[in-house]
């Protein structure tokens, strides 16, 4: 390198001695080291760009999402004993008027129009919340109970500082009348912002203040369970066969190329497979976690097979030969000795594969797991959403409250992913053997 540079230097025949101490050479050295430093800077800049993006991504999500982990509620006292409720038919009592009478006591002198605005402060399903709590615990009918009623989304956003009260009234979704009433409620100490358990225990809803992830979490859980139950045994069996039993011929080469290619097929294509084959030809139910798990397991399989094969390969030959030497059959060698030794790596790979499957969205969209479903699924054949598809639904919803909910749902999803990866890393460090 430096030789060719010297040779190309102007006004110098190849035979002449190089004057290393000359100014020309010093400048040249300087330029060469500057080029070296520049390359180093580019590299560092690349890393800073990537990590900076990651940091901005996570902080943005945290900043938009953290507010959805609390929910503005009003404590409303309702004297149910004073109401004339048929105890044999609690469900059919006029809960709407019971609730409205109770909150009306706060402001008895409102006009009709003002009252309408006032009721809109509370979530429109408030009376169902009261009813369901009474249904769960009929003893409440005998006394006065304080109910924590979530405020409607516009007020919730206002309480969280997301609505600018200085805007003209027609440019915000909270009316001046509502703001005044809200301030009075707040002054009376009725407003609080407890942790939003509803985010985890409510199912989806059109109203942001009531929407939660219960359906999505259980849908994802069932889908991952199906995915695990299929891909884990099938993946291990396939890997063992290809690594230990299969003859080396054109067929096994074909299978191998095939598996490597499947690992790189776009996920949306797997979704089309699920739609055309599982839903179209086999007539399996739409939106079901079972079908979702089936598609996800087909996607996870190649990765799992590749990981398992690598870990089987890393078990030393000596172990196989020792077992064969004392008279074990080939199956016994593998299932009693090789596989247990490879298992920690396989488990790590499985968990990482499942974590990838948990974040997959496109195939689940195509098999209809983006439906609007207001109750968690009872089983793997019930229609349901999954965490990533729920994020997709919420991200598409126009209400202001869903922006924070979407970020919060993403944080929950990332939390699950971090947990799974932490388990995988723990398993790797605790149990993996280096040969």
């Amino acid at each position, binding site marked *: 390198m*430096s030789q060719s540079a010297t040779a190309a230097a102007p006004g110098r025949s190849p035979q002449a001695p190089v004057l290393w101490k000359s100014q020309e050479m010093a400048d040249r050295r300087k330029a060469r080291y500057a080029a070296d430093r520049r390359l180093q800077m580019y590299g*560092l800049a690349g890393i800073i760009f990537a990590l900076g993006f990651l940091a901005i991504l996570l902080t943005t999500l945290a900043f938009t999402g953290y507010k959805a982990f609390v929910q503005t509620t009003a404590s409303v006292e309702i004297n149910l004993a004073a109401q004339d409720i048929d105890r044999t038919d609690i469900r059919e009592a006029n809960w709407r008027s019971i609730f409205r009478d109770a909150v009306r006591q706060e402001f008895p002198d409102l006009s009709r129009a003002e009252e309408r605005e006032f009721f809109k402060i509370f979530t429109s399903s408030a009376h169902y919340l009261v009813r369901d709590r009474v249904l769960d615990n009929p003893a409440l009918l005998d006394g006065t109970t304080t109910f924590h009623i979530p405020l409607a989304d516009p007020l919730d956003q206002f309480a969280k500082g997301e609505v600018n009260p200085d805007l003209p009234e027609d440019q915000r979704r909270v009316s001046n009348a509502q703001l005044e009433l809200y301030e009075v409620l707040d002054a009376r100490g009725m407003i609080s912002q407890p942790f939003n358990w509803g985010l985890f225990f409510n199912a989806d809803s059109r109203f942001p203040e009531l929407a939660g992830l219960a359906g999505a979490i259980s849908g994802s859980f069932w889908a991952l369970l199906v995915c695990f139950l299929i891909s884990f045994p099938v993946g291990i069996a396939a890997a063992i066969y*290809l690594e230990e039993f299969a003859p080396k011929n054109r067929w096994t080469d074909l299978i191998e190329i095939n598996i490597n290619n499947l690992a790189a097929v776009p996920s949306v294509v797997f979704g089309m497979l699920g739609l055309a084959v599982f839903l179209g030809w086999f007539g399996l139910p739409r939106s079901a976690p079972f079908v979702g798990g089936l598609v996800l397991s087909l996607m996870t399989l190649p990765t799992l097979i590749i990981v398992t094969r690598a870990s089987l390969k890393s078990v030393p030959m000596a172990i196989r030969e020792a077992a064969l030497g004392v008279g074990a059959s080939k199956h016994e060698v593998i299932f009693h000795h090789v596989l247990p030794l490879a298992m920690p790596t396989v488990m790590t790979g499985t968990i990482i594969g499942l974590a990838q499957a948990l974040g997959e969205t496109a195939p689940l969209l195509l098999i209809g797991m983006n439906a609007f479903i207001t109750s968690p699924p009872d089983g793997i054949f019930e229609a349901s959403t999954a965490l990533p598809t729920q994020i997709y639904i919420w991200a598409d919803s126009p209400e202001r409250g869903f922006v924070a909910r979407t970020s919060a749902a*993403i944080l929950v999803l990332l939390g699950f992913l971090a947990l799974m990866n932490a388990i995988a890393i723990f398993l790797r460090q605790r149990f993996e053997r280096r040969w």
Partner: protein
Amino acid sequence: MTGFLLIFLAAAAVIAALVGIRRARRVRDSAAVKTHSRPIYHGLNAAIWTGVPALIFLILWALFKGPIIDMLVLASHPGAEALSESEADLLLSEIRQVAAGTIFKEPTPEVRDAAVHLQFLESLAVWALVAVAAALAAIGAYVGFRVVKTRFRARHSVERSITWFMLFSSLVAILTTAGIVGSLLYEALAFFAKVPIQEFLFGLRWEPQIAIRADQVAGQGAFGMLPVLFGTFVISMLAMAVAIPVGVFSAIYLTEYAGARFRAVVKPLLEILAGIPTIVYGFFAVLTVAPLIRDLGQSIGINASPNSALAAGGVMGVMLIPFISSLSDDAFAAVPRAIREGSFALGATKGETIRKVLLPAALPGIVGGILLALSRAIGETMIVVMAAGLIAKITANPFESVTTVTVQIVTLLIGDSEFDNPKTLAAFALGLVLFIITLGLNLIALRTVRKYREQY
């Protein structure tokens, strides 16, 4: 119901195993000669005989019960043979609703009869399933117990079953590929029967929404895929423009300049970028990057679309950084030390060694990584579904909105889809194109990487 049957089968298999082990022990203790297999294998053999045939039946039943019942019900409805596929589907769903008791309008007597027939078949199916599964389990258990003898090679029998299972498992990958190719081809051919293939391949207009209604004839060139493909190309190139320099430079820094501790911290952090689900990137692109680019465009006097190609492509590029960086990393690490040291010995600086020696030596590996990343970019779905546009346009302006193959697939297939609509079928034709492109890229990439690895 299926869940209960599965639990029942599992329980039956466990019981069969326990009984088999007991019998084998008795045989072993009472016989004068040595038994071939240990009792556990006799037990496992009995369990396999009890559980597996019934399980296979259960799976086949779950897959084929629906279509068979539908067929029988349709056959019982007079005049159903003359119906087209979608009319038959409508009729079936009407019958199903009547059978389920949710009636919106007064059904015709034929439909009512068919509904009764459907209910009868459904209940028959449940009983048939239970009866056949139980019978299979019982027969299997009987066979499993009968063969418990001193000379019976139960271990061989069990190992044979396991080998069969392993063989079947390794075929699942082939079956998956066959399923993908088969379903895509089948639906795509149905599409080409409605829209000529040259229209699809060379048409310059993509307006699938026009042909929603049956009485509307699909406009000439409404299903031309070139604009969609072009949009995919634009977004992928934008993504690669971000991912290649950042990925390769950070790989250079990590392998050649960084200390061990810096590398140990930064490399896993970079990998996090690959572990974040794409929907998160998509949401981030819509929430933060797109408005940013819009403002940026306005400040330099360009009217940027709210879902500009730049937002989707740029964010996708960031997602691809760890792919390129870790594959380049591997490629650099695979260059032998001797080559590096030879260059140092000639007086080259580190930077010169990297540029003139390492980079050419590692180039095939890096190119392989880039091709894999490109195939990912083309197949990437959620980022573009959320951040890119829906209207197909041939433009190379990154501030305009373009659409991609994957966006069109998802928008065409989301919601209720019927398989005789050119809209739905067009998505499968696009899927076929996508599959062929990514498959080609993957094959080339894997070959490049492998060829390179053999060099040293």
